[in-house]
């Protein structure tokens, strides 16, 4: 997994690529929780180049989302590949996360 932290019109974008698994999700977790602890109001996560995610990766985003709720922060997922979307659907997390097609949709949404 690679995390490329970008900015889009002032919003932090986590552009992820490769495989998110039990070995890489701790790295993702510490980056994400770093932003959350600073109460960053909006975080975008770009899944476009993610080839694989396991339950530890999903858990990381659930944890991030829960930690953002108390201060009204928003976590928006975008560019989620079909096979990964299927996992969110199956886990009933498609209704829990804000999921957008691309960065523009996420910006408007």
């Amino acid at each position, binding site marked *: 997994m690679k995390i490329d932290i970008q900015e889009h019109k002032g919003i932090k974008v986590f552009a992820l690529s490769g495989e998110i*698994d039990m070995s890489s999700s701790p790295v993702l977790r510490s980056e994400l929780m770093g932003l959350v602890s600073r109460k960053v109001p909006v975080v975008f996560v770009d899944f476009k180049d993610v080839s694989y995610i396991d339950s530890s990766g999903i858990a990381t985003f659930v944890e991030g989302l829960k930690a953002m709720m108390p201060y009204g922060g928003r976590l928006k997922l975008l560019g989620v590949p079909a096979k990964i979307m299927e996992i969110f659907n199956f886990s009933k997390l498609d209704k829990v996360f804000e999921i957008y097609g691309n960065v523009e949709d996420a910006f408007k949404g």
Partner: protein
Amino acid sequence: MRLPKDSAVITIPSQPKYLCVVREAAARMADMGGFDASAVEDIRLAVDEACSNVIKYAYGGDGGKRITVRFRNTVAGFEALIEDSGPRTDPACLKGRDLDEVRPGGLGIHFIRRTFDVVAFDERKRNGNRLRLLKYRDRGHEDRHTGT
């Protein structure tokens, strides 16, 4: 355990960084067994989750142990046997969370059961655990993709 014909076996240290080797082998074996791309990805994930759980629960995070996975394509389907040397697991413990109760964790078992038709510990194993995962083949594939 004797090695059945036409099976591949992988042993890795009980560390997360080696999981990619096992799940990739699972995917290659499932592909070779004639499963479609979507089923191959489901199998990749489910085998990974089962091995992650061995690291977390059977070994309590100890990276100095081993996990052995045996893959086989049979007439029935795709089989993965996941072996550890940890304390005997109570099958009743393998419970995922209620999917309506949103919290981190508790999804791995769901991913395993979603993909595999059989998820059962081999009672004959004396030391450690052997989890048997079996995914049945679609009837239509039987002739094309089995055996040597």
